[in-house]
């Protein structure tokens, strides 16, 4: 089932409300903290995909994927 516009708008307003309630310190550092959290999940995925990879190899693949994401964002 596709979400209707009223639901999309309501969810957006909720996100706006949460952002207004966040302490300034948290907002400033949220970007880097969310990045670290995303990277931990990506690394878990890489370990699952490459069970024989050691941590250095996992880190290398992770960096490669982050570079790929950055390039895709700049050419979108």
């Amino acid at each position, binding site marked *: 089932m596709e979400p209707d516009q009223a639901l999309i708008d309501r969810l957006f307003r909720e996100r706006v409300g*949460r952002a207004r309630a966040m302490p*300034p310190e948290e907002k400033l550092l*949220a*970007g*880097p903290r969310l*990045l670290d959290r995303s990277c931990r999940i990506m690394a878990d995925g890489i370990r699952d995909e490459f069970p024989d990879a050691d941590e250095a190899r996992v880190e290398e693949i992770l960096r490669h994927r982050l570079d790929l994401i*950055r390039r895709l964002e700049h050419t979108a």
Partner: protein
Amino acid sequence: MTSDEAVIAVIDALGSLAVPYLLTGSLASNFYGIPRATQDADFVVHLEKLKISAILQQLGPRFRLDPQMGFETVTATARYSIRALTAPLEIELYLLSDDEHDRERFRRRRRIALLGRSVWVPTAEDVIVTKLRWSLQGRRPKDRDDVRNVLAVQADRIDWDYVYPWCDRHGTRELLDHVRGSIPPP
């Protein structure tokens, strides 16, 4: 070192060296809008006679400078990339350019007390003007989303008399009106 610790280390290094700076990019739009993950921490710095090596020295051995200097294409600003060795975040230091809006937003930057230190941020209006310009010229959907989020969160606190003349000069008024029109009413 985590990515947020890397950001704080750069703020402290710039503060220790008395380098005038301002946070920009998604760190600034997160501050005024709806936070999202970011791979880059962008700073505009006014180095004057100081060399980039002094900042690197202040940061210490946990950071590495990319030897290749880059350029930001919208305002032709020179850029240094610094990487924290154990964090995925990339630090981008943009030199203050001669671009008129770049200068104006730097002049209008605000000092706020955060995390027990002073942090320099642009105004919400300058985040909007800058992101619209990047969105139009860089064609990055994220910049447009960031503008929408800042507009929605800041709502009636935005000084439109400042924003619109810059948008007219940058050719982004139509885009601004389109983004404004896409925000659901409260």
